[in-house]
C-alpha cells in the first residue's frame, strides 16, 4: 500500500519520458553497476572498435565512429559519472542512442562494459530517484527499477547526454585556444 504514493511521486518528479513510455529497459553495466535506458531511446548496439579519437576534447568523449556513413560521437559513460575511464574488454559495446534536443534528435554512442538484457519493469516497481546516496548526479536518474537481482539505475538520457551541457566544453576549449593564439 505504501507503494501508491511512491508511484505518484515518480510520475510527477521523473520527466515525462519515464511516465508515458512503455516500461521496457535495456540494461547494461558500467563500472560494475547496473544501469538501464528506455528501449525507445536505443537505436542499436554495435561492437566496440574503429574509433577515431578526437583531440582536445574532454575525457568523456572517446572519439567518433563511422555508423554507415554518418560520423557519430561516442561518449564514455563512466567518465560522465565521474569515474575512471572504461577499460576496453571482450564484452565492451557501443550503444547508439537517440537523444532529444532542441535541434531535433541527435544520435550519440556510449561505451559500456557489457550489455545485459531487455527488462520489463512494471511501473509500480519503479521508485523515484533517491535524493542522496546515489553515486551519480540525481538529475541523471529517471528512477530506480526494482528487479529480483536488485536495483537498476534507470537513466534520464536527455540529461545524461544533454547536448547543451556537453557542447559547452567545445566552446571552452576554443576560447582557451583563442586566448593562446
Amino acid at each position, binding site marked *: 500500500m505504501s507503494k501508491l504514493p511512491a508511484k505518484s511521486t515518480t510520475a510527477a518528479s521523473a520527466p515525462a519520458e519515464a511516465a508515458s513510455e512503455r516500461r521496457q529497459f535495456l540494461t547494461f553495466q558500467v563500472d560494475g553497476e547496473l544501469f538501464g535506458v528506455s528501449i525507445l531511446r536505443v537505436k542499436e548496439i554495435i561492437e566496440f572498435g574503429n574509433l577515431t*579519437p578526437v*583531440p*582536445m576534447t*574532454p575525457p568523456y568523449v572517446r572519439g567518433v565512429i*563511422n555508423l554507415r556513413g554518418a560520423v557519430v560521437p561516442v561518449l564514455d559513460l563512466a567518465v560522465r559519472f565521474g569515474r575512471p575511464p572504461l577499460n576496453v574488454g571482450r564484452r565492451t559495446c557501443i550503444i547508439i542512442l537517440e537523444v532529444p534536443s532542441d*535541434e531535433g534528435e*541527435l544520435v550519440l554512442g556510449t561505451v559500456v562494459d557489457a550489455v545485459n538484457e531487455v527488462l520489463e519493469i512494471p511501473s509500480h516497481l519503479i521508485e523515484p530517484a533517491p535524493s542522496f546516496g546515489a553515486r551519480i548526479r540525481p538529475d541523471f536518474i529517471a528512477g530506480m527499477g526494482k528487479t529480483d537481482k536488485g536495483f537498476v539505475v534507470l537513466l534520464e538520457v536527455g540529461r545524461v547526454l544533454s547536448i547543451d551541457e556537453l557542447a559547452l566544453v567545445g566552446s571552452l576549449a576554443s576560447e582557451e585556444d583563442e586566448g*593562446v593564439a
Partner: protein
Amino acid sequence: MPHNSPDMAAALRTFAEESGELLEAMASHLRALLEGDEDMERLHALFRAAHTIKGAGGMFGLDAVVGFTHLVENLLSQLRDGHQPLTPALLELLMDCRDQMEDLLKEALDDGDAAADPALAARSDSLGARLQAALGNTGGGTGGGETASPATAPPPSAALTPATDEDVELERVEADTWHLSLRFSPGVLREGMDPISFLRYLESVGRIVHIATLVDNLPDAEAMDPLNCYFGFEIELESERDKDAIEAVFDFVRDDCQLRLLPPHSRIADYIALIQGLPEGPDRLGEILVAANALTRQELELGLTHQRQFAGQAQVPLGEILIAEGMTHPPVVEAALDRQAQAKGRPGKDKGGESQFVRVHAEKLDELINLVGELVIAGAASHLLARGRRDRRAQEAALTVNRLVEQVRDVTLKLRMVEIGETFNRFHRVVRELGRDLGKDIALDITGAETELDKSMVEKLGDPLMHLVRNAIDHGLEPPEQRLAAGKPERGRVRLNAYHDSGGIVIEIGDDGRGLDRERILARARERGLIGEDETPSDPELYALIFEPGFSTAQTVTNVSGRGVGMDVVKKTIAALRGTVEIDTVLGAGTTIRLRLPLTLAIIEGFLVRVENVPFVLPLESVRECIALSATSAADRRQYVNLRGEVLPYLRLRELFALGGTPPRRENIVVVRHQGNRVGVVVDQLQGELQTVIKPLGRLFRGMRGLSGSSILGSGEVALILDVATLAEIATSRDHNRGGPAAQLQQGASACSTQ
C-alpha cells in the same frame, strides 16, 4: 479564393518561386538596359515577366500586386511597341517599380494581403502616379490597339470570310460589349485550375454584363466524372481594355480552354462565324446570344440567312479562324512559342537569365548525397579487397567501378553548389536605394559571381553580407563633396568579389572610401577601456576591435548603421560557419573586408597523414611539399627548420593535439601554405592523396578549432580534417607568446580535462 486547399497552397508556393525568378530576371534585364545594352529582346522579356506575374497574381487574388503590375506592364508595352523612347529616367522608374513589385509580392505571400501595410500601399500609389504620368506622355491607352481605333480590327477577319455578302460584311452589331465564348477542356480541374477563379478575375478587367452557362456537354449521371469540367460560358463583358488584356486573364488555362473573343460592335459575320465554329450548333447559340443582348434577333436572322446562302461554298473551318485570330496577336503567339520551347527543354534559349531548372526538394538531394557518400566508401572497400587478391581482372573491374563512382560523386556534390552571383545581385538594389537615401552616387562592381558554394552556406551568408555592404556604403564611402575634395571620382565604388582559395571560399566586400582611421579606433578603444593607455596594438588587433559589441566610431548614428550593433553579429555568424573575417584598410583609400569560409559540403581533395595511428586529412590545395624531419632538427627543441635557406616554422601534431605516445624514428614535415605563410606540420606517416566527402563533426564538437570536419576513409575509419588556417595561426603567432605550442596545448588540454 480557395487558398486553403493543399493544391492551391502548392501552386502558391510555385508561384512564389517563379515570381522570384522572374523578378530576378527583370532586374538583370533592367540593369543591362541601364548599362546601354539596348536589345529589344530585353524589353520583350521584361514585358513577359511583368505580364506573367500579373496574370498569376490575379489567379491567386493578389489584387495589390495585380493592380500595380498592370501599370508597369502598360508602360512596358508602350516601350516595347516603340510608342515611347527608352530613357534612363524611365528605366530608373521601372527599376523602382520592380522593387515595389518584389515588396508587394513578399507582403502578399507572407500575410496574404499586400494592402495591409500602409507604407507599402502609399509607395504603390506614388509610383503608380509616376507610372501614369509616364504613360500620359503618349496620350494614355494601352498599346494603341483595338480600343483606340476599332476600325483597325476587322481586316484579318475580313480576309477570312471572302464569300460573305458586302452588306453583312459591313453590318455591325449594336451591342457595345465584348463577347467571350469560353469552353474549358474537361481536364481543367485536374490541372488545379478552377474556372470560377478565372471568371472572378475577369471582373478585374471589366464588368460581366451577362453570363450564360452551357451545360450541353454534361453527360448522363452514370457517365459523369465529377473530376471533369463540362461547362462552357458565353459572356458579355463591358470593358475599356484591349483584347490582349482580356485574353491575358486566361493565360494560365490557355492550353485548357477554347476562348473566342469578339470586340464590341463586331460585324455580324464574325458572330456567325463564331456560332458556326462552336459545337453547340447555330440555333442554340443564336438563342443564347440574343438572350444575352449580344445580338438582336434581326441581326441573328440576317446573319444566318446569309450564311445559309453560302453554305455550299467556302465554309470557314474553325482552325482557320483560330490561326487568323492568333496571327492578329503576335505577343500571344510569341509567348506560346516560348512556352513550347521551354516545355521541350530546348537549350540555348537563354535570353539573359531565363535559365532552365528542375526543382528538386533539398531533402532528396541530401539523401542522394548521403547514399553516394556511402557508395564511395563501399567502392573503396571493394577496391581494397580486389587489390588484396592477385586477380588482375577483378582489380580492373573494381578500378572502373571506382572511377565511375567518383564521377557520380563529383556530379552529385555539385548539385548542391550554387553560384554566389545570385546573392551578390541582390545588392544592386540595396546599393541603389541606400545611395539615394544618403545622397551618394555609388557603383557596385561584382566579380567572381560564378564562384560556387554550398546552398546552405549561401542562405546563412545573406545577413552578414547585407550588414557589411550597408556599412561600406554608410561608413566607408564619403559624401560626394568630400570625395571630390580628396581628389577621388565623385562616384563611389563598392566591390563584391568571391573566389576559391585553399579549399574554402573567400568573399570580399570592398569600398574605395575613407578607410578605417587607426587613431580614432585607438582613441575609442582606450576610452572604452578595451586597450590600456600605454599599449600599442598591431593593426590587425586594433581593426579586430570594430567587431566588438557596441563598438562604433561613427559620430552620428544614422538609420542605416552606426549604432555599433551588427559587426559583432557578423563576426559571430561567420565564426559559427567556421569562417574568419579579415580587414584590409588604407586610410583615405578604402577598406576591404574579407570573409574566408569553408565549403561545408565540398569535394575536398585531401592529403592523408597519420599521427599515433590517428588519421588526419590536410586539404590538398594547401599542401606544398613534404620533407623528412632530420633527426638532428627533431632532437633540437627549436620549432623551425631551414627550408632551402628560408625559415620554416613547424608544429608537431602530436604535441599540439596532446596525442601522447612516442614519435617514430623518422618523422615527416608536410609544408602547408596559408595566405602566404608557410608552416610545417610534423606527422608520423604520409599516406598520400585522397578525395573525400566532408562530414561535419556535429553539434558536440561545434566551436572546436583546429579541425574543420571529418571524413570516412575507404577502410571505414573516420579521419579528421585539419583546419590549416588555425594551424598556421598557431604556428606563426607562437613568436608573440613565450611558450611553444606544447605549452599552449597543455593549457588547452588541461582546461578540457578539468571540466
